[in-house]
């Protein structure tokens, strides 16, 4: 009993001292205007903002169990890594605030950390396991992979290649433009594009709600097993459409009548305007709605 009491007292002391050891970290390094900045943080949060200085500035609030923050600089590349030893008893969270040259290419990886990116004009590659992600894009490509966190992407209508993949988080993308490849298993995809040349969307059980103007000869394809697909997409030059659902309903705003296929299931196909582009929507049991007006 006494030994157990002493052991408990020891553990409490260890935990208390770990908690009390929370510190801050600050470092600035020179960086190229369009270099790569790589940030890796296991837990906590990451805020990245673009600025006009040719420097990367890191300010961090560190939990007691964080071993250190490594900031290394090589030509064209700055690396920021939060190191937490395995089996740490205390708080391994780090809240990072990073300012980067606004033209930087950003590579960000986190496990349990929310990420917020603003004012970064270069390519972004973000991989987040369980945090929420909010980012802003401005004409450069985006590759964003999320597992369970929700994703919000704000664009400014400038054309880019966008690749967004989520397992169970919801994805909200507004004012994007260009080419989009987006997928989720069970999250909802809510997308508005100012203009779209190519869209590939795929879900298993999540719904897709899309609103956006398709460019001339655009290609739009969305499939889901049981999620609903609701697409409002006017298009320059019109498009041919091909809608099929095994057991869901198919609806449209332009008065086309649904056909019954030879076997089980429904389909609806036709052409709007010149038929320059094409739209294909397919589900097993989800409902489909297509409208060529916004």
């Amino acid at each position: 009993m006494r030994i157990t009491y002493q052991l408990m007292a020891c553990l409490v002391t260890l935990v208390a001292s770990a908690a009390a050891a929370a510190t801050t970290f600050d470092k600035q390094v020179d960086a190229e205007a369009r270099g790569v900045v790589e940030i890796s943080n296991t837990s906590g949060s990451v805020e990245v903002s673009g600025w006009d200085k040719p420097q990367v500035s890191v300010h961090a609030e560190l939990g007691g169990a964080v071993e250190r923050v490594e900031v290394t600089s090589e030509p064209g590349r700055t690396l920021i890594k939060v190191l937490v030893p395995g089996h740490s008893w205390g708080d391994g969270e780090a809240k990072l605030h990073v300012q980067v040259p606004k033209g930087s290419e950003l590579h960000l990886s986190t496990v349990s950390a929310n990420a917020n990116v603003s004012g970064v004009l270069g390519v972004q590659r973000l991989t987040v396991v369980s945090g929420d992600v909010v980012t802003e894009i401005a004409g450069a490509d985006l590759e964003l992979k999320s597992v369970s966190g929700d994703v919000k992407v704000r664009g400014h209508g400038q054309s880019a290649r966008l690749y967004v993949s989520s397992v169970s988080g919801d994805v909200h993308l507004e004012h994007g433009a260009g080419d989009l490849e987006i997928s989720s298993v069970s999250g909802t995809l809510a997308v508005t594009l100012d203009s779209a040349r190519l869209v590939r969307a795929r879900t298993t059980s999540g719904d897709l709600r899309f609103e956006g103007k398709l460019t001339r000869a655009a290609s739009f394809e969305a499939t889901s097993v049981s999620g609903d697909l609701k697409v409002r997409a006017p298009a320059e030059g019109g498009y041919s459409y091909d809608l099929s659902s095994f057991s869901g309903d198919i609806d449209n705003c332009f008065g086309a009548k649904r056909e019954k296929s030879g076997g089980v299931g429904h389909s609806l196909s036709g052409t709007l305007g010149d038929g320059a582009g094409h739209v294909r929507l397919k589900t097993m049991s989800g409902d489909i709605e297509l409208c060529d007006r916004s």
Partner: protein
Amino acid sequence: MSAPEERKVTVNSLAELPAAIQPGQDLWPAIEARLKSAPVSQAPSRFTRLRWLAAAAMVASVAVGVWIGRDLWPLPGSGTGAPPLTTQHPLTEGAAVNAAYMSDPRYRRERAALMKSVQAQLETMPPQTRAKVAASLAAIESAKKDLENALGKDPSNALLQELLINTYQDEMRVLTDVHEAGDAGRGI
């Protein structure tokens, strides 16, 4: 109302002519259809996590082609000579796709390795994340079953075949993404 007169664009040198001209129609669907029968040449052998994609795609196309193939082979008279088809088979067509995947050793190996890795990754993740990922994998499993059952009622339904193959591929994509995301977050 007549269209406004187009502004004529002039150039000062040949180099100013646009290098890119977009085709009048999207050529990708035709290319994609031909890719399925054109194997990509393999790079010199080196273990990669994503080799399953090539295996899965080939297995899927063989499975669908052999067991369900009547509606997927080219139309008669196109000169490619569709092979004779058996019309009776003890397995349903959806289960045939399942069997084709599960019997492929590469697919089984890669899936097993990824599942093991993802299980280990999930152990280290917050409970809420574990629950969400587990729910998504369950959604995929449920989707596979629903599609296989639906194919039982309408065996030659190309839509269902496509969605089923998509679902197998999505499962592997999810496992790979979770595995890679876990590694990346640790700066590995």
